[in-house]
């Protein structure tokens, strides 16, 4: 019998209380009639019968409550719409940000068992993740046992000719082990074999899905065709799946790496990226331990190159700068704040409404509705509001998502656009239910406790006095959270302004940049390249409105590589960050076109040729480092395999971007390089400084290039100022998002204060009437209401500031040196909070002042 009573708990309590005893009686009679084996049958039947009927009873109640809710909300459309909109904002903001965070940080990478994929890096003093050299990679692969596969790749760019206009394509050259290590097979065709990867083998290539669609219109017979990449014919052997974006989303083709034996000579040729797959059961820690043992062995074996060169293994999922990661968490935190405020706001609305409805509920209680029933009804109402808000929130998220797309870092092998898929919708659903519960439970429990006959008593005043504390607490919380958001937005804005104020060292305005690819081996000879540069530059300089033009190998802020060790007076130093510089080959006129000041000596010159002393122009910080307080002109240093003579000194530029430090710069004359050497560094980027915006010159420049070499594609056309702006683009988007969140939070908090005070004023109308009748002045009444508002604000601002300081600390590393306790920001946020309080209290205060004493007392 006890079992049956237990089963009855599936029914709602009220139903159980009403019919439970009788049901037990009936059941015991039924059990008495059955005997032996039949009893078991009765039990089984009863079990399913109870489940089914209990569900049906619950459903009946739900249906009733839903209809009742529909009626109740239709009677209070203003309340319903406000609650739904506020919820939609909260859920929408979180859903949009979650879809981004999930896409970038949480979701597994699109490879089988991607948690076992790692990237391997060299670690040098000053460089925590340095690309490994081919020789070290080969030794790691030979010695390591922690991995079941290891492969290396580099990214590359080639000219494609023979398929319409010449095109620049981005691709990756990979060893044959990369795809098996990733666990990816082609959509059709085959992957690279060891034979394809051998030096001198006929070149083969895999197409990306996008390139296959674009170039060949998804022609399935593409396998076996040949494409001319940099004048070499490549055999197409396969097409990769649509979702395969490796190492990044911009890659359009893959070729076999085909390392030459000579590539394994120089252990300081840091040019590879290495991916590996952990053996099943091997932890990342174990792999790291093994790699550091291996690095130690290589250090002893090759002391010249490998001193202090470590080896690190990082999970591929973590291939993301801490800054990008923190940026996303900041957004997520900000969105969560919006949701908290939204919850507090709707809870407050519901509380106010519940107080107003006290009598209605009391009537229902008097007519036999139990407390459980009332609570259930109110919970249904909250959930209906939440679900409607949640649905609208998904729409908000969908609309807001395009704003966030630019925050997806390009360093991950994932698509550039997060999607609102089932996973995100499930998140939104759970969030909605939590939201509904959060704002619904408090009011429901409160009413459940209070719904008694008391509510019916004539003149009973709803929501007076001490019960108001809960609503006041919610408003205080709203103020606190909005302060946190305001301060975060303020700090981020200060950081952005500070970074934007950084002088890049060059003037980016009115500079047009573009790339001509100069495919090898066609441009292998230095003088062939020189002829090309001179022809282009001479004609471009002749165009009207051109101030200067020059070529460089690698634009600042676009390419941060080309880092070489420096030695002065033959002193061999360890390969550490403190003694490196970035190398760039340039043509004369580069400093003029970029407005980089020449402080001493001269520019590189056309007469700096291979048969003369190798010259170099260095930057101020280079001089500071090696010859402080001395005249650097005429000094020698050893750099990039040659002895070089300092002929000029220029200002420093931010090669690696506005944030963070850059190595000193060494500029080398474009003609001082032997044929076929350093072709990777050959100047390919044309910069043109105009007296006005040079964008209009582009057609003429293209024509000049076409006339010089019809097969030369022009790519990466951009204004240099856009390059500089793109440095801060993720930040400014982030700031905009946090700013919008802060504005919403702020508005909601103001509405919260306004709502609370309005309610208080309407409750106190008779009291105010009496006060006025007794001779209180309007100023007193005004002060009374404003004081209440101000005390709410103060109570919220104080904890808000403490929380904001903690939040600022947590995001310190994205603040670019702005103090988390930045006084200006905190002061501004506080002032805004005060303004908000005054604005929120003003209308209720005016209403209080305008109370007519006679009417107020008559109503009582």
């Amino acid at each position, binding site marked *: 019998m006890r079992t049956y009573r237990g089963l009855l708990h599936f029914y709602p309590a009220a139903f159980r209380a009403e019919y439970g005893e*009788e049901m037990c009686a009936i059941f015991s009679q039924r059990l008495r009639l059955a005997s032996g084996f039949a009893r078991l049958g009765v039990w089984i039947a009863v079990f399913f019968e109870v489940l089914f*009927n*209990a569900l049906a009873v619950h459903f009946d109640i739900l249906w009733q409550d839903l209809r009742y809710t529909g009626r109740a909300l239709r009677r209070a459309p203003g309340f319903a719409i406000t609650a739904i909109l506020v919820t939609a904002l909260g859920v929408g903001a979180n859903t949009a940000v979650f879809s981004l965070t999930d896409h970038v940080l949480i979701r597994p990478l699109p490879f089988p068992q991607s948690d076992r994929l790692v990237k391997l890096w060299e670690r040098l003093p000053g460089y925590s993740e340095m690309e490994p050299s081919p020789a070290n990679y080969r030794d790691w692969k030979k010695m390591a046992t922690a991995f079941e596969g290891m492969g290396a790749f580099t990214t590359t760019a080639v000219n494609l000719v023979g398929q319409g206009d010449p095109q620049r394509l981005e691709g990756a050259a990979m060893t044959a082990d990369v795809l098996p290590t990733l666990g990816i097979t082609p959509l059709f065709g085959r992957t690279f074999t060891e034979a394809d990867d051998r030096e001198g083998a006929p070149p083969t290539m895999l197409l990306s899905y996008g390139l296959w669609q674009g170039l060949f219109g998804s022609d399935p017979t593409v396998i076996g065709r040949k494409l001319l990449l940099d004048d070499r014919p490549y055999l197409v052997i396969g097409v990769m799946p649509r979702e395969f974006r490796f190492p990044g989303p911009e890659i359009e083709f893959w070729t076999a790496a085909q390392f030459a034996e000579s590539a394994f000579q120089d252990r300081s040729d840091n040019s590879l990226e290495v991916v590996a797959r952990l053996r099943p059961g091997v932890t990342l820690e174990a792999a790291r331990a093994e790699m550091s043992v291996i690095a130690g062995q290589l250090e002893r074996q090759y002391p010249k190159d490998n001193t202090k060169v470590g080896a690190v293994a990082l999970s591929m999922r973590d291939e993301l700068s801490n800054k990008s990661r923190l940026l996303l968490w900041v957004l997520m935190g900000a969105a969560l704040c919006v949701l908290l405020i939204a919850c507090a706001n709707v809870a407050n609305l519901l509380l106010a409404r519940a107080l107003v409805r006290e009598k*209605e509920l009391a009537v229902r209680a008097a007519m036999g509705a139990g407390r459980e029933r009332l609570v259930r009804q109110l919970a249904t109402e909250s959930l209906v509001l939440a679900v409607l808000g949640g649905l609208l929130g998904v729409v908000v998220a969908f609309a807001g998502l395009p704003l966030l797309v630019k925050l997806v870092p390009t360093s991950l092998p994932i698509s550039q656009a997060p999607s609102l898929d089932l996973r995100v919708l499930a998140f939104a659903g759970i969030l909605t239910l939590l939201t509904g519960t959060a704002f619904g439970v408090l009011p429901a429990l409160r009413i459940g406790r209070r719904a008694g006959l008391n509510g019916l008593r004539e003149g009973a005043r709803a929501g007076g006095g001490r019960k108001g504390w809960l609503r006041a607490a919610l408003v205080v919380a709203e103020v606190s959270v909005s302060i946190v958001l305001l301060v975060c937005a303020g700090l981020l804005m200060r950081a952005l302004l500070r970074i934007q104020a950084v002088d890049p060292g060059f003037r980016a305005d009115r500079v047009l940049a573009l790339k001509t690819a100069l495919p090898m081996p066609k441009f292998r000879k230095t003088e062939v390249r020189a002829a090309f540069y001179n022809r282009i530059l001479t004609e471009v300089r002749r165009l009207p409105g051109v101030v200067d033009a020059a070529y460089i190998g690698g634009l600042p802020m676009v390419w941060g590589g080309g880092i070489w060790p420096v030695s002065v007076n033959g002193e061999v130093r360890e390969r550490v960050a403190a003694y490196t510089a970035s190398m760039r080959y340039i043509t004369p006129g580069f400093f003029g076109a970029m407005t980089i000041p020449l402080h001493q000596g001269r520019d590189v010159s056309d007469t700096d040729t291979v048969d003369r002393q190798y010259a170099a122009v260095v930057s101020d910080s280079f001089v500071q480092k090696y010859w402080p307080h001395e005249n650097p002109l005429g000094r020698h240093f050893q750099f990039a395999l040659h002895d070089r003579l300092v002929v000029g000194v220029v200002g420093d530029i931010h090669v690696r971007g506005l944030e963070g430090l850059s190595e000193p710069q060494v500029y080398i004359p474009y003609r001082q390089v032997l044929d076929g050497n350093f072709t990777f560094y050959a100047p390919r980027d044309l910069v043109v400084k105009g007296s006005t915006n040079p964008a209009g010159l582009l057609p003429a420049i293209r024509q000049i290039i076409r006339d010089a070499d019809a097969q030369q594609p022009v790519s990466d056309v951009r204004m240099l100022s856009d390059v500089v702006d793109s440095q801060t683009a993720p930040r400014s988007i982030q700031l905009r998002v946090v700013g919008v969140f802060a504005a919403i939070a702020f508005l909601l908090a103001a509405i919260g204060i306004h709502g609370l005070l309005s309610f208080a004023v309407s409750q106190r109308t008779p009291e105010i009437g009496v006060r006025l009748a007794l001779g209180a002045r309007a100023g007193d009444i005004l002060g009374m209401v404003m004081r209440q508002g101000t005390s709410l604000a103060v109570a919220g601002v104080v904890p808000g500031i403490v929380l904001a300081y903690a939040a600022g600390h947590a995001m310190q590393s994205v603040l670019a040196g702005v103090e988390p306790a930045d006084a200006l920001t905190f002061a501004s946020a506080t002032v805004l909070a005060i303004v908000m309080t005054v604005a929120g209290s003003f209308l209720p205060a005016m209403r209080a002042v305008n109370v007519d004493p006679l009417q107020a007392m008559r109503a009582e």
Partner: protein
Amino acid sequence: MAIKNISTMAIMEVMSDKLPEPESLLPLPAATFHILMSLADEDRHGYAIIQDVAARTDGELKLSAGTLYRSIQRMLEQGLLVEVRERPAPELDDERRRYYRITPYGGLVARAEGRRLTQLVRLAKASGFAPGRA
């Protein structure tokens, strides 16, 4: 004051909840119709209803306790039944038992259902799906 008006409205609404047209409840769930039939001639308690329905249908339909009380609850809300306060003589009574009586409105609804079924049987006969003549 606004508050007073709202509460008065709430009361008014509950009081004046008009009973819907009997036809709007049709077709009745089988259990509901059987319970109404069982209560047609006398007030009964729950177990008596189960037994009566079983007897009427020669044991075809054995209502479970859950189905019975779920139906009863809904029928009470719909106004088809009321619970009666009068109890039988104490020696026949079990104080746990509740007795139910059909309301005039319940009678109307049952009759409407009866009409609906008769009509249906007539149609079935005309189509040759039921024994007898149309």
